[in-house]
């Protein structure tokens, strides 16, 4: 385990440098002069040079990059936004990160809690109507992207509201009811995929010899399914969690924009439109780093859970 962790640690350092470097270079290669945009019609050489110095834009690019990384590591300071009277990026994104994190993790948890049992259920009733029905439903849910599912759900919701039935709010963030639609939509696709994945691995495990032995010994069917077969069948699910988190990022961006949720995706897209590149860089780096760390956690979890990996 130690050798694995050391190797992964160096890989992590490399990835962190690569992510910050690429993001920084792209953000600073943006055409146009952000200071001029900021000053607008109130151009004044003294203020201009003062702002250039404030944003460290007068230094060579590599020096800027070095300072940028050092400030992030030492002070968690991502620089200052071009908008909002030069507030620090952390102030702009600070409130957004918990929202996005909540949305993403809730969606993942919901997807696992719904998808895995459905997959087990389908595997235990293989090729019977329940299985075929759930597999058809999951295929549709899985291939339809979230922004096709959202208008359908919203239409139903609006119809419910217009006809007086209880309905869910369709925008903004704060109450539990406002969280249901966005998190539900995000979870749906992943739940469908997890259901199919669990079903496949479960079917494979249920045909193994050790299951047949357990049944031959007289253990009841439900006990065999839940206690013997489940653990090896869940390993691919843990492997999938890493890529799932990566896919959730794009989904969260889209959902935040459609439902007006004050998260990192919403802030990032608005900052892109406002050409507020420090915020965009900060958002990209924060999200990428969080995802990389969660992937690492998922890998470690997999190594702990899989008894076939010898230490």
């Amino acid at each position: 385990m130690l050798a694995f962790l050391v190797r992964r640690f160096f890989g992590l350092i490399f990835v962190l440098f690569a992510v910050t470097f690429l993001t920084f270079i792209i953000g600073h290669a943006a055409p146009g002069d952000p200071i001029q945009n900021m000053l607008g019609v109130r151009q004044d050489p003294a203020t201009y040079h003062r702002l250039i110095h404030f944003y460290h834009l007068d230094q060579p690019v590599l020096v800027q990059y070095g300072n940028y990384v050092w400030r992030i590591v030492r002070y968690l300071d991502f620089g200052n936004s071009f908008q909002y009277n030069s507030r620090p990026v952390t102030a702009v994104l600070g409130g957004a990160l918990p929202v996005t994190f909540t949305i993403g993790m809730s969606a993942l948890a919901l997807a696992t809690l719904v998808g895995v049992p459905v997959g087990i259920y389908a595997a235990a009733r293989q090729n019977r109507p329940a299985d075929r029905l759930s597999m058809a439903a999951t295929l549709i849910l899985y291939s339809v992207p979230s922004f096709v599912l959202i208008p359908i759900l919203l239409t139903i919701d609006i119809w419910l509201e217009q006809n007086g039935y209880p309905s869910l709010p369709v925008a903004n963030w704060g109450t539990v009811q406002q969280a249901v639609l966005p998190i539900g939509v995000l979870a749906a696709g992943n739940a469908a995929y997890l259901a199919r994945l669990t079903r496949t691995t479960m079917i494979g495990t249920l045909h193994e010899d050790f299951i047949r032995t357990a049944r031959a010994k007289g253990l009841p069917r439900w006990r065999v399914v839940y206690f013997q077969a489940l653990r090896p069948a869940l390993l691919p699910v843990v492997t999938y969690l890493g890529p799932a988190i990566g896919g959730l990022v794009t989904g969260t961006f889209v959902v935040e924009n459609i439902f007006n949720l004050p998260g990192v995706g919403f802030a990032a897209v608005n900052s892109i439109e406002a050409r507020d590149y420090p915020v965009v860089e900060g958002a990209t780096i924060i999200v990428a780093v969080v995802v990389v760390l969660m992937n690492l956690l998922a890998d470690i979890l997999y190594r702990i859970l899989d008894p076939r990996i010898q230490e």
Partner: protein
Amino acid sequence: MYASSRVSLVALCTLAALALTAIVGPQVYGQSATSADIFNLNPDSWPSASHLLGTDKDGIDILARLMMGLRVSLGVALFVEVLNVLLGVPIGLAAGYFGGAIDFVLSRVADALFAFPGLLLAILVAGVFGPSVGDAWGGLGRLALVTASLALVSWPLMARYVRAEVLSLRERDYVEAARAIGASTPRILLVHIAPNILGLVLTVTTLDMASQVVNEAALSLLGLGVQPPHASIGLMISNAIGVLNINWTESLFPGLALTAMVLSFSFVGDGLREAFDPRTRA
């Protein structure tokens, strides 16, 4: 062989029909996709005789916009795959065949790009360079930018697949035999290895096109792809969500078109994978 699966055939026909609609449709269908009839302005109208699928919030015909959007989606997906193949296949070949330092450097580059989750890097690139590219080269420029940014984040996957296949192929007997009789390295790569990865490349390309169609729609939905008055499926859905209480069919048709494209590409890709899989061949 490919034709043995009915679903794959149906998917292929659907894809051909969509492509045909995208190419010929805008010429055949009378309504304009970018301007409304300002003397008979009828925004958000339901399907009617003159506007077969209704109109959007600006009074522009939805079917016309949908066909232009199909052009954009299929075109972007196709060119992203072309770039993927042009970038990913040679890099995967080099990394897999030569190994050593070349493999190390190329794999690190691919890993650096892989580290960005999902479309994050594509969003960054399209967002940062979008306005200036749009000013300099117009709508076509923004399309090219979307294509480039999507290709940037997806070539590492192709390179990884190719590299894995080449790693196993270079140990085959016929490669060793070719080396033994003194074949030059370019010849081995071109004559012996490349033809055998063709099946894999074709399958991965088709399956990836399904994702690229969705990715392009996502970028347009966020406002980073083609801009109004041009049409794109993501842009249409984004506009339609705002007027769902007035006319819900506006979001239905682009959504159906997108789903049709995704499912068709997926099933065609599955059919190709089964056709090329040596284990299921007759």
